[in-house]
């Protein structure tokens, strides 16, 4: 009877020891997510329509959004962009797809050959890839031009209010290529 009891204790001790050792094996490491970063180097972008030519030709953000994005990735990546919704002044709206975003090389793009995909048909509320690279980069800077072009929608968005500011939030994200 005494011998049998000791055996049971030993088995219990072995089980306990096994459990302690096997726990660390279950750690999951997601290198893809942790190895990417993106920073938007402006809190706001302003496109001002002041003249008749602005309304016929549209307005670019131009140099004001040079080096707009800083990106780092341990492997191939893509940068996607989307808008929160139509631009609104609180009461009225102008269409989100009247905004075209065009990326290009910024002051620091070394060791990669990215492909640039302007949002030709305008921004939407769904992610659109605008920069893709098959290889990673420790840090790259990209220019991003914002172009507001839909004069018909804008012309009558001022109305009798004197001046109007229409806003939306644009979100950039970095994903594996």
């Amino acid at each position: 009877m005494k011998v049998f009891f000791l055996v049971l204790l030993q088995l219990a001790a072995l089980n306990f020891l096994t459990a302690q050792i096997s726990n660390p094996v279950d750690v999951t490491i997601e290198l893809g997510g942790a190895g990417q970063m993106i920073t938007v180097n402006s809190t706001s972008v302003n496109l001002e329509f002041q003249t008749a030519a602005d309304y016929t030709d549209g307005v670019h953000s131009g140099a004001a959004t040079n080096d707009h994005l800083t990106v780092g990735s341990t492997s191939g990546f893509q940068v996607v962009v989307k808008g929160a919704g139509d631009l609104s002044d609180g009461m009225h709206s102008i269409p989100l797809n009247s905004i075209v975003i065009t990326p290009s090389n910024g002051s620091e793009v070394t060791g990669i050959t990215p492909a640039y995909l302007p949002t030709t048909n305008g921004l939407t509320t769904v992610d659109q890839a605008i920069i893709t690279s098959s290889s990673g980069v420790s840090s790259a800077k990209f220019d991003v031009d914002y172009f507001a072009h839909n004069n018909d929608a804008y012309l009558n968005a001022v109305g009798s209010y004197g001046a109007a500011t229409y806003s939306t939030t644009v979100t950039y994200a970095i994903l594996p290529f």
Partner: protein
Amino acid sequence: MKKKSVLMLLAIGGVFCGVGNSFAQSGDVTLNVKLKPILNIAVSNGQTVDLEFATATDYQNGVTSDIADHLTVSSTSGFTVSVKSSGDLVNGTSPSLPIGDVAITSQDGSAHPIAGVDGTSLVSGLALTNAAQPIFTSTSGTALGTINVNYKAKLTDDDLDTQGIIINTTTGEQTYTATLTYTIATP
């Protein structure tokens, strides 16, 4: 063994917590489109319109001048273009000719066709006066939109017979002038 395992977990966790905190995988920017109102009008054609009476037919039927894209207008909302004259047609010496002898017809021009224009907002054969009269109304805005203007001058029997000032000149011609002013306004 147990202590080592725990230490390894803490170390790995620390590294990836640190990565997550300092490197963001997305970023926001507020996009503002600032629209300022515009309202202006310009007259093309060197700002001079000549109506020349040279033949008997001219005196009989009148003389016209079609000026395509005569007016260029911009407005960030619906608008009305009006015209008025400074007074009758004068030449400084002879009696004047009534400005009502000149009539205006307006049409949508070729550049940036103006939405919101319909036939009832245009004018056809509107006799000019010293008071502003609408010649073009749009319910929506335009940027650098253009308006065609046709001028027609037709002298009346009174001009020719009673005043007799046109055909009896010794110099062979007389020039009568008035200044027209176009104005754009929002309702």
